[in-house]
């Protein structure tokens, strides 16, 4: 919130860095400000346009579990609150493109409803990407990470067995601002339906599968760090929704490393969350169309199978998808995992002087750690920028 209001922060949302020239103390950065087709200075964020827009597309903010319109706000409380037209989904922009390419005019369908409804006259279909330059003395990369989409782990049936979701999808299912308004429904009961069906059954049995794609010799060997805690948190919140609900966490071990973390795990145990020491072998579709988890309980030394309403995969924290491109643009190196490379004694310096990194871009980190890293990186930026300024002043 404060970022949007701060007099010393210029927010360039919906923008990407194209290239970086220069050196520490004097970088010239080329930035592409993508066309929103909505005038930021005029849009009041009232939402009348999205209400009338006839085009529905899967909503990436809700991980595709809900829908949004072709003109949208990324999420309700988003900053800036300006609406944006998705150029791939909007009928009018598609029509204009076809017109430009010389298509048969009688076949071109145009819409233009949002421009008609907008009282602020903020819709501008002719808006173009803008190239802007900024002169800066240092750069911080806080580009985050990628959540593994576990289709490739075929034995877990993601995308094939109904009601198998990733943890971030489950967060959207739990959320009051999500597609179910906070009711814990099974996604297969409503995703893809035109209207949310009435009187859906609530999910009563949840399974959380740990280390999906992490600590796995066939995929990423690294521990993603935060998944143990987010599975415990999701189990606790689900039980807060419904204390009768059954929540099982399947994992090799629980890594509750941090102040208060072990106490949180104990709290989960006390309210009845079950921890099973195991590595789940397979998830199959059962006769009721629900997922069945096959696992060996290594304490009992027996193989079991059990039916659940929703299976939540704690999928791995991977380097950002465009990390190699980013490395090229910024002239920095990546480490053997594909995250941005740092040195043990300079944990926030990249391999290029004056460019710093913090958060998950340099490796898995939970929220408190990302915040601590960000403050450390800020201190490091101050140190280097002021040193450089002093050097220049001495000359």
């Amino acid at each position, binding site marked *: 919130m*404060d*970022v*949007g209001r*701060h007099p*010393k*922060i*210029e*927010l360039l*949302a*919906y*923008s*990407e*860095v194209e290239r970086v020239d220069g050196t520490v103390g004097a*970088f010239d950065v080329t930035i592409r400000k993508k066309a*929103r087709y909505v005038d930021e200075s005029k849009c009041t964020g009232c939402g009348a346009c999205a209400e009338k827009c006839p085009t529905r597309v899967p909503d990436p*903010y809700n991980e595709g579990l809900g829908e949004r319109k072709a003109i949208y*706000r*990324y999420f309700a*409380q*988003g*900053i*800036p*609150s*300006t609406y*944006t037209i998705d150029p791939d989904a909007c009928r009018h922009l598609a029509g204009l493109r076809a017109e430009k390419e010389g298509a048969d005019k009688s076949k071109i369908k145009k819409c233009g409803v949002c421009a008609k409804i907008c009282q602020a006259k903020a819709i501008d279909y002719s808006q173009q990407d803008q190239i802007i330059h*900024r002169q800066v*003395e*240092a*750069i*911080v*990369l*806080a*580009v*985050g990470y990628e*959540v593994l989409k576990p289709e490739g782990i075929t034995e877990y049936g993601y995308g094939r067995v109904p009601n198998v979701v990733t943890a*971030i999808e489950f*967060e*959207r299912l*739990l*959320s*009051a601002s999500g597609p179910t308004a906070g009711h814990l429904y099974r996604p297969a009961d409503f995703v893809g339906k035109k209207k949310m069906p009435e009187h859906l059954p609530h999910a009563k049995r949840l399974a959380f599968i740990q280390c999906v794609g992490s600590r796995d010799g066939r995929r990423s060997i690294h521990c993603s760090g935060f998944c143990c805690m987010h599975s415990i*948190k999701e189990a*606790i*919140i689900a039980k*807060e929704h419904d204390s009768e609900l059954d929540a099982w966490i399947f994992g090799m071990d629980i890594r509750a490393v941090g102040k208060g973390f072990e106490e949180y795990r104990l709290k989960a145990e006390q309210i009845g969350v079950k921890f099973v020491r195991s590595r789940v072998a397979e998830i199959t579709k059962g006769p009721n169309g629900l997922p069945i988890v096959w696992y060996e309980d290594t304490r009992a030394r027996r193989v079991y199978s059990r039916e659940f309403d929703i299976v939540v995969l704690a999928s791995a924290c991977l380097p950002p998808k465009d990390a190699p491109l980013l490395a090229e643009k910024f002239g920095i190196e990546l480490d053997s995992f594909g995250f941005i490379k740092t040195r043990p004694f300079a944990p926030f310096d990249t391999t290029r002087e004056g460019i710093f990194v913090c*958060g998950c*871009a340099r490796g898995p*980190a*939970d*929220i408190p750690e*990302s*915040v601590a890293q*960000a*403050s450390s990186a*800020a201190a490091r*930026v*101050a140190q280097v*920028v*002021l040193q450089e300024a002093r050097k220049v*002043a001495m000359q």
Partner: protein
Amino acid sequence: MIRDKEHHVLVIGGGIAGIQVSLDLAEMGFFVHMVEKLPSIGGKMAQLDKTFPTNDCAI
């Protein structure tokens, strides 16, 4: 701390790390340009329902 001239820095990414580093630098007196590729800032944390350990709302 910074009296003589305004120092400009660029932060790429508007998630929790990018927001924190920008606020810290701005509070120190730097001028921060923040670039976010999505239409609004917040990052992955804005997708979370509630956050550990206090179970407070993420936004």
